[in-house]
């Protein structure tokens, strides 16, 4: 399972390294979103700093949808999905591999957006480890749910419009938890304890990773 997962992740990341779709389209889209949020809030920096945690995670959520779309469309050309299905790889490994690839892309995205939030919105990070851990857990959770829904909607003609509608409400806990953790980690934020939210993220990740490992096989078969 783990070896197959590594293989699939390596394949997806190699495609990304050669095509640079996520890096040249999804990440810049995230930055555009940050700029648009700033326009919506007005030039007042204190307001931006207050909204920064939530805006960061909303941008990540939107970009996650795009990253998942890309991860699915990589498989849709030239019958690649059938090839993957016939390859004899463990479906659980396939799930973990796809999740890992999307997760790595999201981590890069989060790093860029975090720098963007610090520079553009003028926030000051007090406890960096909270930021790092929340980004890591958030990326895993979004990648896992995204991979599940991506596989589910893979064969659908209405995938582009249906996927965000299905995925974003599921990701509500990630948005809430990520925002609260960031608020705890920023100087300008509302003082709140981040640890229960970290636990919530861990539970979210564990639940969907476990679910994916169990159901990905039948899920891919039905798509």
């Amino acid at each position, binding site marked *: 399972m783990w070896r197959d997962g590594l293989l699939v992740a390596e394949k997806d990341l190699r495609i990304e390294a050669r095509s640079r779709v996520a890096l040249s389209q999804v990440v810049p889209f995230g930055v555009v979103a940050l700029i648009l949020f700033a326009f919506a809030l007005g030039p007042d920096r204190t307001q931006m700093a207050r909204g920064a945690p939530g805006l960061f995670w909303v941008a990540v959520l939107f970009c996650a949808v795009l990253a998942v779309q890309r991860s699915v469309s990589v498989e849709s050309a030239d019958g690649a999905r059938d090839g993957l299905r016939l390859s004899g790889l463990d479906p659980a490994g396939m799930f973990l591999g796809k999740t890992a690839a999307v997760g790595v892309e999201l981590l890069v995205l989060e790093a860029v957006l975090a720098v963007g939030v610090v520079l553009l919105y003028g926030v000051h990070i007090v406890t960096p480890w909270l930021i790092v851990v929340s980004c890591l857990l958030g990326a895993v959770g979004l990648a896992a749910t995204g991979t599940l829904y991506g596989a589910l909607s893979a064969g659908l003609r209405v995938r582009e419009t249906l996927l965000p509608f299905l995925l974003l409400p599921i990701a*509500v806990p990630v948005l809430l938890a990520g925002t609260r953790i960031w608020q705890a980690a920023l100087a300008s934020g509302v003082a709140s304890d981040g640890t229960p939210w970290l636990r919530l993220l861990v539970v979210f990740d564990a639940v969907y990773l476990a679910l994916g490992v169990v159901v990905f096989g039948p899920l891919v078969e039905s798509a």
Partner: protein
Amino acid sequence: MSAPGSIVVPAVSERARRLERAIGIAALLGIVATVCLGLWVTPADQVQGDLVRLVYLHPGVAWVALYLAFGLAAVSSLLYLWPRTRSLFWDRLAAAAVEVGVVFNACTLISGSIWGRPTWGVWWAWDARLTSTAVLLVLFLGYLALRRVPAEPEVRAKRSAFVALFAAVDVPIVHFSVLWWRTLHQGATVLNPDLSPTIHGSMAWTLLLGFVSLTLVFVWMLLVRYRIGVLEDALAGRELDAALRERRAEGDPDGADTPADDQRTLAPLDQREGERVAVEAGSAVLREGAR
């Protein structure tokens, strides 16, 4: 009446129809009684005045939407996914439960809003319970959107069951996160309305009657929706056969009798209201699929 290759509409047994009708009548009587008791017999509340009368409706609707309908949908989706109990019965039951549940969920939010406006002064408050109810509504609207995507019944059933499963797993996490979101933040302003300080006598009975009759309404709607689901699938299959025959007839100039044949098989369906809805929905599905 069945042309070669066409799917015969599964006959609903007379007993099932009679049961459905009995439940429908009981639900109607229950609702009428609840309305009469709620509006005229029970007294107005000391604090809330006539507003308290919404209490006979709102919790019952919420109970049906949040626990009964979505619980049933989750369980039947799981039973569909379980290989030993896999049957389209569970799929149709889940679909019917979600569809009725979404209606009840919307009614919960609407009746809550109507109550909230004079009581809290706002139509909507970001209260934990309200927020998770709204998220639940969106989750299951996604389920219905997925069901509308044309597909083979088995494929659609499996896909929908997975979505229901993913959503059902999310519900407790959403619930807790929204709860903490409200309470870990500014705890003092959490809107925790004291719905009914003391409930007794006619009020308690009316409340109970409301619960029972709304549950009956739910069961009745579920049965009707299930029957329509069966008819829809049968019709989609039949229309597909008709379309196939038509295409074959295009190459064969003598086979021009198919449209008339098709009309004849569809005619008896128009007799009852439910079936007419099914005819429209089924042909819409087919048109979508043809595109």
